[in-house]
């Protein structure tokens, strides 16, 4: 490309105009999480201040956020795992036998408003005495993760040449063992995409956990929200809580940038 200094400067300005608004809320959140209440409510807002750790101490020592973090991890990891167990064979079958209707049936769960299942779940789980249980939460989060697994994996399996399985089957493998032993090991990138996306969506879920969990199984988003509803908002601690909850999803995204992009652009862009 030709180097025109005016153009390069204009482009840098454009970049800054895009990046600064995106990043500013994250930076402000991070800064505020190290501020004292006095620094946070000072007017004009302070950009230079002495960082303190008290907000994180409050979050982790007084509020026991580790407990909620553990809950969030259990619910997300287990629900993603079982969604893969159910979703991978379904996605394979959809790809191999062109089961369009089946794929639409499962994808509808991705599009429908979660609250139209949540009210009946609430009634049934209360009757079954499963409120505030990991089982109820995991089942509800699986309905988030399963359609994502199918959404990402059926086009992926479709793109793997059939000859690979067929060769294995000629060598005496059954189709199901060819799927497990040949196809799945080749599908690492697709599985990483599906896993990362469904983990993030499950980790961030607010509404399901808000209704189905109480003290024992409460997940991070609810803990952060409850923190906010105290009489006087302790902004520093709330920001520390917000940093804590966002950190895992953001770190995952940085590691798996390519896969997250793949998963998010899937469906809208062919190929």
């Amino acid at each position, binding site marked *: 490309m030709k180097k025109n200094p005016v153009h390069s400067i204009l482009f840098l300005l454009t970049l800054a105009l895009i990046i600064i608004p995106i990043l500013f809320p994250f930076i402000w959140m991070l800064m505020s999480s190290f501020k004292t209440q006095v620094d946070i409510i000072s007017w004009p807002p302070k950009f230079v201040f002495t960082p303190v750790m008290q907000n994180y101490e409050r979050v982790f020592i007084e509020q026991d956020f580790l407990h909620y973090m553990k809950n969030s991890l259990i619910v997300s990891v287990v629900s993603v795992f079982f969604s893969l167990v159910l979703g991978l064979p379904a996605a394979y079958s959809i790809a191999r036998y062109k089961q369009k209707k089946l794929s639409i049936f499962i994808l509808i769960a991705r*599009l429908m408003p979660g609250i139209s299942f949540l009210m009946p779940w609430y009634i049934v789980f209360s009757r079954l005495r499963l409120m505030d249980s990991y089982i109820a939460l995991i089942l509800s989060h699986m309905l988030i993760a399963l359609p994502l697994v199918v959404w990402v994996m059926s086009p992926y399996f479709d793109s793997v040449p059939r000859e690979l399985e067929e060769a294995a089957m000629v060598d005496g493998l059954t189709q199901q063992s060819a799927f497990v032993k040949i196809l799945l090991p080749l599908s690492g990138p697709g599985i990483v995409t599906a896993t990362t996306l469904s983990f993030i969506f499950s980790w961030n879920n607010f509404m399901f956990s808000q209704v189905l969990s109480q003290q024992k199984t409460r997940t991070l988003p609810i803990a952060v929200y409850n923190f906010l509803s105290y009489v006087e908002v302790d902004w520093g601690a709330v920001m520390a809580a917000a940093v804590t909850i966002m950190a895992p999803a953001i770190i995952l995204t940085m590691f798996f940038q390519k896969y997250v992009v793949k998963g998010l652009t899937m469906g809208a862009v062919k190929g």
Partner: protein
Amino acid sequence: MIRQGFFEKNLRYLFPLPAVIFVVVLMVFPVGYTFFLSFTDWTLTSGRPLSVVGLKSYLQVLSEPRFLEALGRTFYFTFGSVIVEMVLGTVLALALNRTFKGKGVVKTLLLLPLVATPVAIGIVWNLFYDPTIGILNYVLSVLKLPQSGWVSDAKTVMPSLIIVDIWQWTPMITIIVLAGLAGLSSEPYESAMVDGANGRQVLFLITLPMLMPTILTAVILRAIDALKTYDIIYSMTGGGPGYASENLNVLAFKYSFEYFRMGQSAVMLVFLFLIVLLFSLAVMRLRRAFEQ
């Protein structure tokens, strides 16, 4: 020789079976039950058993101003945010559509709002919007502009929430359009060069028309999510001040889990469900139309 036992012969039914059973139990039955409840007047707290009352709950809901306002607000929020996201997202993608150092980093930064926990996002924006300590009113005061109540004022609460949605989801349109741009074939551009087309003609006559399928699909997918927005609104305003920011999802949530009026809540859910279903059918139509 390929072995063909019972399992292999019926693989196409057996492989998806667990997933299908799961979706039937966790989605189809509950949605059916919600439909059934919408014909009852069941209130969980009344202690009365539920009785089927036909369309009575529908009439009650449809004559409830709070519901009609929430319905209007649902569309206002959806169109207000999605139209801006479509235009802005496409413009950003066109601006970023070149090779430069650090493109990967910029793409990662674009992803951050999408993967950030909505509740936490809501909290940060509430700090920005705070009328007395918020940075936005500070900026307004420096610019000698009148300050705003943002989410604490019934007049400005919806635009303020829409701004948060735009901040969070414009990057998604950008990322999708960028991927679409990368996949465009170069032939039309070459012939345009031969024909001596200028930059604007190339943009409006070649690039945008070729991108349209991608943009439209992205926009409708986004609209479906915007119709059911819950996390941001509930965590930032709880539907307030008063009822000024309640959309259908927030209102139905309150009817279900705060007032326990299951019958009427079910009616609202049926409406939300039907609206989302119509949009979803539109996506599938569009995709099929573009595939041909």
